[in-house]
């Protein structure tokens, strides 16, 4: 009788022991969704006065290629200066990084690069004849 009772007790304990049946993890159940749709690059309506000068002023002019500080005799805060770099063939290799990084084809900006969207906008402007618009 005593032995039977012990077995019953141990069986009861085992039942309680085995009763944790979920293995839920809150973070796994509610993953944070990251928005991975890429932003589309808008290459319509590119003008020098708005689009191109905006890119050049933000990345190239201040302290490097302004009318007052013209590194390598390159001026990019006027259409005349930018157009000169198109005519001498130095603008596109500099920003596209598709020529050796030295001399007249040194990669610009000095560190990193323009965004792919900005590069495609400048390419498109040059292909359109680098107009002063």
């Amino acid at each position, binding site marked *: 009788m005593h032995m039977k009772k*012990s077995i019953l*007790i141990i069986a009861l304990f085992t039942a309680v022991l085995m009763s*944790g049946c979920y293995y*839920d993890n809150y973070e796994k159940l509610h993953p944070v969704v990251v928005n991975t749709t890429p932003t589309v690059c808008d290459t319509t309506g590119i003008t020098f006065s708005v689009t191109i000068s905006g890119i050049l002023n933000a990345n190239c002019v201040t302290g490097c290629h302004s009318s007052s500080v013209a590194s390598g005799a390159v001026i990019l805060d006027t259409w005349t200066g930018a157009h000169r770099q198109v005519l001498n063939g130095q603008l596109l290799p500099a920003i596209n990084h598709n020529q050796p990084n030295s001399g007249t084809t040194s990669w610009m900006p000095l560190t990193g690069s323009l965004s792919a969207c900005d590069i495609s906008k400048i390419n498109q402007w040059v292909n359109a004849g680098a107009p002063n618009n």
Partner: protein
Amino acid sequence: MKKILFSTLGLCFSVGLFAQDELLNLVNDGNQKKEKDFTIATFKTTRLYNFHTVETQSKRSLDFRISHRFGDMGLSNGSTASNFGYNAFGLDQQASIKLSLEYCFDGRFQIGIGRCSDQKIVDGFAKYRLLRQTTTKGNPVSITLFAGAYHSFLRTGDDYFNHNPIGDRFSFCDQIMIARKFNRRFSLQVGFAYVHFNLVPMSGPHTLADGTVFTGDKNDLMYITGVTRYKITNRMALTAEYAFPLSGSNYNAANTVNNTYYPTMALGIDIETGGHVFQLAVTNSFGLEEPEYFAHTTGNFFNAGIRLGFNISRVFDL
């Protein structure tokens, strides 16, 4: 024939009172059960402070327990040492309290229910004295099994428990405790505790505050527990308990050093007076339920993350 012989012998020797017991033993050897001397009072009561001990109550007794933990004393909640006295050593801060009723059927099998303010947990447990230490040769240790189920009624105000509204609120603790009363003064207990949470908050990988990579919260956690008491007078004993985590720790946002929970421990005094046992101690755990104090202790015992508290127990013999 044999009966006549034995009864004659018994009559002959019935004058020698000193020898009577030995002779009776001879006659009844096959039938009489030898009474085992079970060690009593390995610990004063069924709990040391937070931890369960191998003790159960006496037969058909009901125990009403009140456990109260005052607030955090100091540094681990951001206050400086100068605030210790100002906050009355934690008495002014948020406290946790647990009420429970426990009943023992036959001195070996005990059940209990309780409710704790921390996480609004309602719990039920069963405890069974598998083996009892004997003063004579026989059992060198006492072994007790413990199984508890805990349900949290906390309103989180978000969708934390929504996946399994009832199941996710459950946690469980199962323990095996082995203790020995070495002498009148000193008892030692070691145990193994298994804690299971049905729902844990964090998965991985995350980078912790100390730069290591955290792979995710575990639903199963295991601990080695150590419990000891040393009697200094007939009524008073010094107590200590500690749980060593075997499975590491889950993510603790409050710990800005390494984002872990701390091992639970307590140092205290037991005072026994008639039907009451008063237990006073300092501990670093806020929670009063097994999964909470094993796995979710936020106080650093050695950096003033401690709190005063007491247990009061009143036993009614039914």
